[in-house]
């Protein structure tokens, strides 16, 4: 081999090394640590960091007041509020967790908390603060109690969100449906979806905008996990039936090609552009529609969230870093921020619902002020009472969600049966769960 060639090949090897480096992954740090209150002496004092998820735009006054009140109540404490943008929040959490830099108190959903708790990074508040449980709604407390780990509760429940179904009544009239008879069950929804597509499908109009998600399976009646939270089981008869209904609708051109791959944002965009008949919404969907799609908002009718079982709700929690240097302060702040008074104040600011016991009895949630927003608030608040956080905490928001959507799309495209698709989805998620 000539010297020139050796140089060239050495260059290629270096380039290839660079390629591998660029395509490579980060350090697989061993963040495993025993849960417990290291650095806690029970004294509420010192500095802590409190991290929220995309709450700085509009809620500064509330959080500044919250922190001031806590610092006054506990002299000698300092709370630094850090807010992270909506985009890439999971990546930020991942980087912090892998680097051992998790803030003392962090805002996150049960799914992220499950992974961090499994790695011993979060405080088990059921063990460390056992009397806290009675202060929260049982459904909210249960959502932060992870049977798949050790049955511990790894965060204080914070705010809840649920909402009604939104229907575009203009499309109902245009596509041969009666806007006075909105669907209330899955059966009615699929029947009316077929009619809508038959009459308006060639214009790209449909009733349903995306594939069923794990919450949909829960609301349809599928058993999502086994009793001890160690295996997924949504490939049961109800789960298969749900996918078969989507299959039948797709075969009758009742779903667009785009819906096979649409995310929640895509579904919302379709509804806003007047191409979608039904949108399962949240408590702030109406104000968003009024602001960003006023023409569609004028045509909107609200109905209860469609569910064969209990309606779904989402939960945010405040978790405490088990490695915090001021565990007592962090725990006290998380408890303070999620107490009934502060949750009520935040719920009024942010159009969400409190997870503390009894707070939903406040007239703000029970008395309709005659506005659309008031009706939405009272109806959704009533729904919270019966709602369930259907999303299993062990079901990852990334790979599991993507795989389920892909498997269902595969079934609709005829690549596999509904049963095979769900079996594959369950196998994949169980395999991932076992490897965590």
């Amino acid at each position, binding site marked *: 081999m000539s010297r020139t060639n050796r140089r060239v090949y050495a260059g290629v*090897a270096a380039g290839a090394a660079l390629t591998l*480096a660029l395509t490579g992954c980060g350090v697989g740090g061993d963040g495993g640590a025993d849960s417990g209150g290291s650095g806690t002496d029970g004294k509420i004092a010192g500095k802590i960091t409190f991290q929220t998820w995309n709450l700085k735009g509009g809620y500064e006054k509330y959080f500044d007041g919250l922190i001031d009140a806590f610092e006054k109540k506990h002299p000698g404490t300092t709370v630094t509020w850090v807010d992270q943008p909506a985009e890439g929040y999971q990546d930020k959490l991942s980087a912090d967790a892998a680097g051992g830099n998790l803030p003392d108190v962090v805002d996150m959903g049960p799914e992220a908390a499950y992974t961090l708790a499994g790695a011993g990074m979060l405080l088990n508040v059921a063990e460390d603060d056992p009397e806290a449980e009675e202060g929260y709604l049982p459904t909210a407390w249960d959502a932060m109690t992870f049977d798949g780990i050790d049955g511990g509760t790894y965060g204080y429940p914070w705010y809840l969100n649920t909402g009604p179904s939104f229907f575009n009544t203009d499309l109902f009239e245009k596509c041969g449906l009666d806007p006075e008879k909105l669907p209330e069950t899955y059966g009615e929804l699929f029947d009316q979806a077929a009619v809508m597509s038959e009459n308006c499908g060639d214009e*790209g109009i449909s009733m349903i905008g995306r594939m069923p998600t794990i919450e949909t399976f829960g609301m349809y009646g599928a058993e999502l996990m086994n009793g001890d939270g160690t295996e997924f089981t949504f490939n049961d008869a109800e789960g298969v039936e749900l996918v078969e209904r989507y299959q039948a609708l797709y075969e009758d051109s009742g779903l667009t090609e785009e819906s096979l791959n649409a995310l929640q944002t895509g579904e919302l965009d379709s509804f806003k552009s007047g191409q979608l008949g039904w949108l399962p919404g949240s408590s702030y969907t109406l104000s968003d529609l009024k602001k960003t799609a006023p023409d569609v908002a004028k045509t909107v009718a609200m109905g209860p969230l469609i569910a064969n079982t209990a309606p779904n709700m989402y939960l945010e929690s405040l978790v405490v870093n088990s490695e915090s240097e001021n565990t007592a302060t962090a725990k006290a702040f998380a408890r303070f921020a999620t107490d009934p008074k502060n949750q009520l104040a935040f719920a009024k600011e942010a159009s969400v619902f409190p997870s503390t016991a009894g707070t939903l009895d406040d007239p703000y949630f029970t008395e309709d002020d005659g506005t659309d927003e008031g009706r939405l608030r009272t109806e959704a608040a009533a729904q919270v009472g019966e709602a369930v956080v259907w999303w299993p905490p062990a079901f990852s928001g990334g790979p599991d969600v993507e795989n389920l959507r892909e498997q269902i799309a595969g079934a609709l495209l005829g690549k596999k049966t509904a049963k095979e698709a769900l079996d594959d989805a369950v196998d994949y998620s169980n395999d991932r769960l076992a*490897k965590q």
Partner: protein
Amino acid sequence: MSGTVTASRRGMRREGRTRPARHPHWTRGSWYVPWLFLGVALAVVSTFVLFPFFNTLLLSFTDATLLRGGQFVGVDNFRELWGDARFRTALLNSTLYVVCVVPVMVVLPLVLAALVAGKGRLLGFFRTSYYLPVIMSPVIVGLVWTNLLDRRGLVNSVLGWVSAVGEPVPFLTDRWLLLFSAMFVTIWMGMGYYMVIYLAALANIDPTLYDSADVDGAGTVRKFLHVTMPGVRNTMGLIGLFSSIAAFRVFGEVYVLTDGTGGTGGDNLTMTMLIQREGTGLQARTGYAGAISLVMFAIMAVLLVLQLVAQNRQRRNG
């Protein structure tokens, strides 16, 4: 032969003696001077290239996750890859990307460069126009093309308006149309960059060769085939290498066109998208993602070596 080299070296030494004496401090301290020059580069390369390389190599043989160091599992990750349908899909898509994009990337920018080479304001305008997509963000480009290729986008509207199609063309939902749309965007974005490289290479071709070709009665096409192309053969090889790596590592275009989903049923996943999916997030399987990275590295290394061998053989024969 060795005697000649030795004599020559001796000569160099003798020649060195005639130079002014070096500063004693400089001579004594010279051992670390090269390291001062190399230090920063070495630190950067070690931190951002060598460490990630060996870390990825080690990880690929473990069951590590983001939050857990993992245990040595031998070749289990590679065995799992073999049975992973998503890996096969990603490998197929990335390979197709190389097969379809690289020939176009090698030839089309050369044609463009040949067309816009020379002086003149109009040619300058075209050179700038062709280069413009290169400086645009892939995400912005992806979003623009997503809007253009959407079911209700401009392309379908125009096709419908001229009655070219009855139904909107599913550019963003059909597996193959989406992949070819992404390839088109890649080519559109990248051809300006390679065109500039070709322009520099074209400037090095001896103009008398074109004069000779004119005398021989060669037309434009013949001159392109028999003067221009041989004149930039080495550059073509280089661009083949660059574009092969870029095509196999495609991410941004497909990611944006599929809204980050990898297409309907994940049919448009590419290798880098699969690595991103497995290797990021709180539940990241860094060991498995490392194995995918290693396979990707091996494929690209083989590809590069094959291209270099072919290029060298061609050079020797030519």
